């Protein structure tokens, strides 16, 4: 049996390693156990000749589900590599091939892993060879990364376009599920529909698989059911003080099934999460029974260091109880409409606006902060990613106007090489003590 790669080399160089979180809930344990099993069975299928798609997070995975094409999501694989503490090893490989260290790492970690001459030593035996790659041109690096990656494996890649809105809607989260024709300009939906048809034809040709309209409708229905459970869970947590769970519980419990959406398993696990959170509330369980601070984590999760958040629970009775992952799963995914493919287009056409573009994102953050009785927000900004900052100035201004303290930190969510745990901890401690006004327990 081959020895897996470790980041021991990084430790000798003094790079700070992250820590895994202590899981309080059963749902994330079920989810993470499932994802490993799923991945191993996917490997077997691919080795037996099934196609495999490698896709970016903002690609309509529902299409692949309806075609029975197994897929791996770029950012999911990044998070797995990062959580396994392998990002320094892979990213060093990328740098050794001439790519500078401060290029986007969140979306290129998978490309970096493709430079490994012993790919089988990657997480769970490494990523199997794909059949196709699909991305969406939401930043300048996407076509570069996906073309380099697809050439590495000698496969074709498809790039979906990204269009830009001219209108600024009010309260997009109220319009998104049912009134999306009002929310998004028709020409954007029209174009995305055409792009999706092109993608389906590309997949039919390159994988030999068939797009089942019947299955597609079922997939859309399952995604909506999953989103409804997520919404119920988010609403339960938001109105419960002290918070029954923190983001170390909800992030894996939401994101593992997010990449499995459109399956009955994903609906069941979303339901399981809801029931488990409800049970905790009924039993009077909480992250901090004497909760003194409710915090938001704005931006991507620290995948290599999910245990980081739990320090503040112990020291301040402060719970990081909100992240984009559950909130977005609650507000941005459910869609109801007559035309299935156009309905799917409405899920994706504005995703980038909702997450990263002011005032779409800043208005939504503040709405969520108020609904969750948030006392402070920590905003992580990755300098290597144009997307992730999401209007730093406007987010700050929106929180100032809402009288909610905000701390903006610069760090990379997957590259632990530049992470200084002591410095980051000190910054958040200073924020809690001096901006929010809560001293250690």
């Amino acid at each position, binding site marked *: 049996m081959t020895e897996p790669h470790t980041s021991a080399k990084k430790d000798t160089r003094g790079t700070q390693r992250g820590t895994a979180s202590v899981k309080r809930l059963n749902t994330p344990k079920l989810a993470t156990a499932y994802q490993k099993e799923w991945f191993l069975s996917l490997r077997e299928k691919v080795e037996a000749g099934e196609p495999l798609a490698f896709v970016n997070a903002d690609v309509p995975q529902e299409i692949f589900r309806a075609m029975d094409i197994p897929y791996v999501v770029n950012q999911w694989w990044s998070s797995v590599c990062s959580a396994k503490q392998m990002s320094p090893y892979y990213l060093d490989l990328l740098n050794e*091939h001439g790519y500078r260290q401060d290029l986007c790492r969140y979306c290129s970690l998978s490309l970096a892993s493709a430079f490994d001459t012993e790919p089988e030593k990657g997480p769970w035996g490494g990523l199997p060879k794909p059949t196709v790659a699909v991305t969406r041109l939401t930043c300048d690096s996407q*076509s570069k990364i996906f073309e380099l990656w697809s050439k590495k494996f000698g496969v074709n890649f498809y790039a979906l376009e990204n269009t*830009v809105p*001219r209108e600024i809607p009010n309260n997009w989260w109220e319009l998104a599920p049912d009134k999306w024709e009002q929310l998004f300009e028709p020409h954007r939906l029209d174009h995305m529909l055409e792009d999706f048809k*092109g993608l389906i034809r590309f997949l039919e040709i390159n994988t030999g698989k068939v797009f089942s309209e019947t299955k597609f409708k079922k997939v859309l229905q399952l995604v909506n059911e999953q989103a409804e459970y997520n919404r119920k869970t988010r609403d339960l947590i938001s109105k419960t003080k002290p918070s029954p769970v923190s983001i170390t519980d909800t992030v894996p419990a939401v994101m593992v099934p997010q990449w499995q959406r459109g399956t009955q398993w994903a609906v069941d696990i979303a339901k399981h999460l809801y029931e488990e959170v409800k049970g905790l509330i009924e039993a009077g369980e909480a992250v901090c029974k004497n909760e003194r601070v409710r915090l938001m984590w704005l931006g991507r999760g620290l995948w290599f260091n999910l245990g980081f958040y739990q320090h503040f629970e112990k020291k301040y009775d402060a719970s990081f109880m909100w992240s984009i992952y559950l909130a977005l799963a609650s507000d941005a995914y459910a869609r109801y409409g007559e035309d299935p493919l156009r309905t799917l287009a409405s899920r994706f056409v504005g995703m980038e606006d909702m997450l990263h573009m002011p*005032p779409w994102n800043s208005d939504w953050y503040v709405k969520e902060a108020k609904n969750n009785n948030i006392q402070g927000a920590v905003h992580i900004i990755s300098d290597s990613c*144009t997307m992730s*900052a999401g209007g730093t*100035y406007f987010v700050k201004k929106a929180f100032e106007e809402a009288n909610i303290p905000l701390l903006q930190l610069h760090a990379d969510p997957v590259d632990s090489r530049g992470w200084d745990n002591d410095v980051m901890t000190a910054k958040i401690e200073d924020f809690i003590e001096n901006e929010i006004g809560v001293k250690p327990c």
Partner: protein
Amino acid sequence: MEKESRSSLSKLIEAYDKRDLAAIQWSENQGQTVGFLGSEVPEELLIAAGFLPIKVAGTEKTDTRIGSVYLESGFDPMIHAQFTRLVEGSYSYLDHLIVSNSSDALIRSYYYLRALHHVEREVLFPKPFFHDFLHTKFHSSALYNRDRTKDLINQIEVWTGEPLREERIVEAIKTCNETRTLLKKMDSFRRCEQPRISGVHALKIIGASMFMEKVEFNNLLKQYLDKVSEMPVIKGVRLFVTGSSHEHTQFYEAIEREQAVIVGEDHENGSRYYEGLVDQEVDPIDGIVDRYHYRFNPSSQATVSERVASLSENVVAAKAQGVISFIYRSDDAPSWDFPEQKKILDKLGIPVLLLDKQDYKVADEKGLRKKLNQFIDEIKRNSSKNINIEGERND
């Protein structure tokens, strides 16, 4: 005669150096000015409407810290400079502002400019209009681009209060094509065996066409080109510049002080600006859309292999002896291109110097000079058997 040619050159250089002057004068004469950010905004339509289109640009004097209050550190410094000039009020004379999607940072800047109108009490630039122009060569993109160009025409008609007449568009196409043809002719005096136009002058001439009225520009450039063959040959190592774009000449000046001449570049303030003509034999909107759609893409909108192919083709055509890849900090797109570009240049036997993570202004002139000196000296040493750097081939 040489004096006359220099005089037209001086006027072009003045238009470049005083880049707001023509627009301010135009405004004072009751004309409407339209600022544009991005290389997909069809100037033809603006000219046809009677506007003066002006490229929004920073200068080497721009204090980018002002824009940095609003923008992300992950955006390249040229965007910071352009944004700075807008928010500080340098373009308060503009009547309208159009942004297109040349890069991700530019698209995001559009959202930010628009958001400033939404959240600030006072802003010193017009509300931006977005010209959404897709770059994949798919048929769906071509149709989308046609519809968005029609949207732009509708917006222009709102601004002028009258229909945009086709004959005016045809006339404007002719003018802009003449500009491109003249600039292409100028380019031939750089790429030829005995270059007579420096990279610095070329950059200023190309830039001047974006800061002044096109007919006047064409007349000045014609006068200059009529006499340029009588100008002295510029001696030095022939270099090609790739990577990030340049909207001031500091870096070009630094290179050409070192016994080198820039014979070509592939950024959008250089030769990409005049690449390709609008077909005058087809429907004007089709012609305009195709010209902006099918040019080689800037790095920010191209795949790595597209950039490798276009670089090797351009470098060979320019007979460059070396390539300098100058890349601003946070300008990720050309950094993704570079490792594969280097491989092809190595195969062609063309040396390449990477100047990565550069600031908007040359920060360390001494250090830059040293690197350029070493690179140019190495080319001279390696090519001394075949090529005399005085510009004459020995073989």
